């Protein structure tokens, strides 16, 4: 038996806000969360801008998450903030959590260079490095395994019905929601917490991505730097953040009188099998993931009423995604609004799919499509109805959300409005 699956809790920690209401208000108003990076001195780096969660202090959360006292990895704290928000928003009783499954998307391990640099000038640094790291007091781990996020969250809330740590890069956030959806739908679990967290605003990650030349270097006008589907777009802008949703069966939600933001209707994933550096230029993999998600939802392409695009603002992605949308939806592609949240949020890598799932749910819940800001010069190759004039009223019943990962992993989700 297949269950209907609904979203009943939203939590996020982003440059545009730490609650669904604040985030959504800023997104609809077209506010940019991109600015100069203040977390460390970026003056010698080619990229000095990003989407930071401002005024975020992990100390605020320490009272609740005492077990995370020694955690230095910023994405752990962003995660705990967002996940706690989603659980609180859902009003789930604690007993329901104990039988819930947990799905967490993450991408890059954080290496704490500052903990080991002082050893660099020791004689024979390479040979002695390990012993020095092992002997230093207090003991510090050079790297944090990605499942640490899953463990802390799972242990704190006793989420004991399976814990999954997905590392599918920029597709991870959408994949975890898709996997959770499948398991709730098939009855493996009645409740799931799914989401993602990432922070690439540290020297090694920001430096490493800079070397790949996919980032905008328009450091002097940060809020204008990410311009999805614009002819003058230069690249994407990294950001940090976390986004989580509580999902449950419709009957479970009805039984407890939960507020329902949206229904999850379908999920599809695919692989480009092309290059690790570039998207397949014709959007082959993206077409596949969208088509699978629409079919999984039991819909036809013409039933899709809005698209929340991956829309990174890189020259290659936006053209390939536009081509893919046109192939997947045919002539109907030109009849529906397309929006790109990254123009305002920046690219949160693993988190983006989960965050854009929340934006899709809010589109259905509030009947508003947020704008794509900074598209002043239309690109003739990007010729869909991008929502550029400000937020738009929306009476449609479905939203398709795309996430395409570095390395060629794609994921698409279809959400539907559930009338009271």
């Amino acid at each position, binding site marked *: 038996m297949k269950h209907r699956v609904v979203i009943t809790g939203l939590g996020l920690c982003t440059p545009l806000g730490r609650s669904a209401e604040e985030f959504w208000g800023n997104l609809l108003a077209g506010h940019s969360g991109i600015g100069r990076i203040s977390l460390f001195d*970026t*003056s*010698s*780096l080619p990229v000095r801008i990003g989407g930071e969660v401002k005024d975020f202090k992990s100390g605020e959360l320490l009272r609740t998450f005492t077990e995370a006292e020694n955690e230095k990895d910023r994405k752990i704290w962003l995660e705990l903030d967002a996940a706690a928000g989603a659980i609180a928003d859902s009003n789930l009783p604690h007993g329901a959590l104990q039988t819930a499954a947990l799905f967490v998307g993450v*991408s*890059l*391990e954080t*290496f704490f*260079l*500052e903990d080991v*640099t*002082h*050893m*660099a*000038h020791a004689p024979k*640094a*390479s*040979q002695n*490095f*390990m*012993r020095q*790291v*092992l002997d230093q007091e207090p003991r510090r*781990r*050079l*790297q944090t*395994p990605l*499942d640490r996020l*899953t*463990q802390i969250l799972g242990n704190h809330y*006793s989420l*004991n019905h*399976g*814990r*999954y*740590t*997905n*590392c*599918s*890069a920029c597709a991870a956030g959408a994949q975890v929601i898709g*996997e959770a959806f*499948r398991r709730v739908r098939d009855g493996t679990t009645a409740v799931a917490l799914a989401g993602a967290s990432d922070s690439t605003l540290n*020297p090694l990650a920001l*430096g*490493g991505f800079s070397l*790949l030349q996919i980032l905008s270097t328009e450091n002097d006008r940060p809020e204008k730097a990410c311009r999805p589907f614009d002819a003058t777009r230069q690249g994407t802008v990294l950001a940090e953040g976390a986004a989580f949703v509580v999902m449950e069966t419709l009957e479970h939600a009805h039984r407890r009188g939960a507020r329902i933001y949206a229904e999850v209707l379908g999920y599809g*994933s*695919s*692989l*480009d*099998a*092309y*290059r*690790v550096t570039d998207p397949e230029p014709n959007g*082959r*993999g993206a077409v*596949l993931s969208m088509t*699978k998600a629409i079919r999984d939802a039991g819909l036809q392409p013409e039933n899709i009423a809005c698209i929340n695009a991956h829309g990174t603002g890189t020259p290659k992605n936006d053209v390939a995604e536009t081509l893919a949308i046109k192939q997947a939806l045919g002539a109907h592609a030109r009849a529906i609004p397309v929006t790109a949240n990254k123009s305002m949020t920046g690219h949160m890598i693993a988190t983006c799919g989960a965050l854009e799932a929340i934006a899709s749910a809010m589109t259905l819940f509030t009947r508003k499509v947020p704008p794509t800001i900074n598209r002043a010069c239309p690109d003739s190759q990007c010729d869909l109805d991008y929502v550029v004039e400000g937020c738009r009223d929306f009476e449609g019943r479905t939203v398709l959300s795309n996430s395409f990962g570095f*390395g060629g*992993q794609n994921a698409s989700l279809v959400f539907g409005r559930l009338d009271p």
Partner: protein
Amino acid sequence: MRKSVVITGIGMVTPLGKNPSEILSGIEAGRSAADRPTNFYATPFACPVCAEIKDFQPQRYLSESKMIRLMNRDAQLAVAAAHLALMDAGVKPGEIYLPEEIGLFGATGLAGLPLAEVVPLIKASADDNGNFDPVRFGQMGLRAVSPILSFKILSNMPLCFVSICENIQGPNGIYTPWEGQGAQAIETAIRALESGDVACALTGGCDVKTHELAFLSLEQHGLFASWQQNHSGILPGEGAVFLVMETADRAIARGARMYAQVSGFSLRTHQLGESRTDTFGEVFKGLSLPSEPLSALVAADNGDVSSGKDEHQALSSRKITASTVIHPKKQAGDVFAAAAGLQVGLAAILASRCGGRVLANCFGHGSEQAAFVLEKP
């Protein structure tokens, strides 16, 4: 109605060889790959040994030297094992199955930065007092690292390389970083086949724990505690294992050789306050095993004294016995994210050879624990 899932291809690149039947024979004959590390001095660590693959040549599996340079060793091993699995199954994407009908579900281990690439970066980024200086990092540190470093530390890359090299375009998921996540990858593949989401699945994992940063992580995570206390413990290994899974009806229709059919699986989250023996017991409970002895057991025991004891107690308390018991991790090395693939792959060969039911325990570090039951189709 859920479909029956079978294993039709096995690809292994391990310290005990690349031929799955020979690897199994070697384990049964007591062969061990344990040796002193050849790439670094183990003296700083409590564990003095590891299991290395001595003769691995990625160019035997990959003609593009440019792509080999982008890969870390985990990815090179993954690409080789995936290729061997598909060859063994007689599956070439685009022929029997369309590329988009084939799913890819795998696990990768902790990001393995080569120390040789890290130390120059660290040195160049230190100020005169030895503190990290982000300005120097930007000016000199970044110049000391390769632009392709990101490809070597992103955990999804090994599987992405597999998809590119084998033209696999279907549903996918990549999990990290321990054996439990490898078991989850296999579980997800089975569910995708059962539900009809994929017609064929390539599943398994890769991991390399034979370099000094891996040893550092293992020691920092307490995985060498048994070495410190008992002078014996886990044997860190390296390798990749992939399995080709299909639905039984499709495999029969194309006349494929079937090693084994998946007759059960059980996954369990280790909860705070619960003993590991109890967790393993709960895993077994989820399998509904018959009371008669199994034909074989692929034990999870990796040489760590306490975890071996926990597994033994859990088996005893559930009265689970087997005619044949093997301990691959003690001989071929513990390959963490690839370990579930190795356990299940060896169980499939045993099921094919001995008949009856074979239990593959996938117990390891982290919270997720699992077991699979296989039998001859």
